[in-house]
């Protein structure tokens, strides 16, 4: 196995300079999830208005895969209706966990760079954790 299959350039770009990292002061929803296996933790903050995600940010103490996944997540869901974001989070989580099928994303989608985790079983959760945190965030009651 070549680590470059896992650590693709796009993924490294996001992990080194993540987008939308930081607490969201005026968030309406937030949830923190921990991977008890390794202690990594991710908090996803959402500002939802009229059933649409206006802003998404994250804070994390985690590895590069998790950071990159969270960074791409915030870019992906910003502006999406909550229902669509919910559907997408479930879809990509399921797809990441299925080692036998490729990710079904548009060719230019940077999330494609997460594809490599499928070959590294112990790292799949690193990629899915932010998405699970976002689902938990969506399920959290608004303040």
């Amino acid at each position: 196995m070549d680590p470059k299959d896992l650590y693709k350039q796009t993924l490294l770009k996001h992990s080194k300079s993540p987008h939308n990292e930081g607490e969201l002061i005026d968030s309406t929803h937030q949830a923190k999830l921990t991977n008890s296996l390794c202690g990594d933790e991710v908090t996803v903050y959402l500002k939802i208005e009229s059933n649409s995600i206006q802003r998404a940010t994250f804070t994390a103490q985690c590895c590069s895969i998790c950071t990159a996944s969270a960074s791409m997540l915030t870019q992906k869901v910003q502006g999406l209706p909550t229902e669509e974001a919910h559907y997408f989070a479930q879809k990509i989580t399921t797809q990441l966990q299925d080692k036998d099928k490729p990710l079904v994303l548009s060719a230019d989608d940077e999330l494609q760079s997460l594809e490599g985790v499928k070959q590294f079983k112990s790292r799949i959760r690193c990629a899915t954790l932010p998405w699970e945190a976002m689902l938990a965030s969506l399920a959290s009651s608004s303040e």
Partner: protein
Amino acid sequence: MAKPSNTIQPPAIPDILQKAREDFPILKRTVNGKPLVYLDNGASTQKPQAVIDVLNRYYSNENSNIHRGVHLLSVEATSAYEEARHTITDFIGANDDSEIIFTRGTTESVNLVAHSFVEPQIQAGDEILITHMEHHANIVPWQLLCERTGAILKVAPIDENGALDLEAFKNLLSEKTKLASFVHVSNAIGVINPVAEMIAAAKEKGVPTLLDAAQSIQHMPLNVKELDCDFLAFSGHKIFAPTGIGVLYGKRALLDEMRPYQGGGDMISTVSFEGTTFKEPPSRFEAGTPHIAGAIGLKAAIDYLQSIGLETIARYEEELLKYATVQLRAIDGLRIIGNPAKRAGAISFVMENAHSHDVGTILDTEGVAIRSGHHCCEPLMKRLGVSATTRASFSFYNNHTDVDTLVSALKKVSILFE
């Protein structure tokens, strides 16, 4: 600041250890197309052929339940199980076989002491003393006990190098302390605690002690009479034996006063619906069919270890750790966590731009097995200002080539994440 020099001669490998490496069949395998470099001995050690053969022999020829049958197989299994106990008695210098209780491992040993020794005598406001560097297995059982009883968990502090504040530990001992329970060697950072002084201080205050020897028993000679600890716990799988078997040593006088841990077969003298009487130690604490093969495997592992000699092992590993420390320090962006005066087993470190899980994955692609994460020591990690580290943990079958492979793999990590 310039990185420290990495000029250090690799340690000479004693002949007996050179040969011993050949005794571990798993070390001949490859991982991801590369020869396995196994540096996760703190998590679990590999098994020598002698242990594997004994398990095979037991299941092929002797397998039966113990303390039950009059038939030959049961008699043979019983005597093999009890011989294993006797080997452990001698190995740790206990007075008598009745002081050796077989458990599932260190975790169960600690829980047994919490339930059977401490709980019956503790009251709200009493205290348990541990240290800041404990494994979760020596934190959580006490937290649960405190929840049940209203007792208070006291934690002796450590400094930024990961060393125990011995004076603070002594000052936390009081007439309220019902037990001081502490680790001999930290699984996460390899620091060796001054356990002789800790036990002596506890004795002075009349406080019983439990020593967690999970990470020391395989690295240095130990003797419970010299240490004078009241209890000592260790796991078989960290000393080249199977998983699922461990030991609790306890002074007989204390064991005599203790209530059973679990109820079941083999721990009773008589049972009636009006009441049940219990066997003497150690049987009182071994309800149900134990891990017979595990105990026999543990004996084989200890016999094997003694054929090499723990003094030889301790001397060699000290040199190997020195070599590894110098080599690791010379890597750009690598910082060793914990800087104890005395170290055994493990070196933990972080890399400037790479999270420990990324380090772990890349090392795996090079065939190098290490542990990354919090090492079941979250409070210690927090104290040392890190959320996770990479830990290389060594055994006598490791050599300088293993260290060199680790170092060259870490250099690849640096390049990928620079």
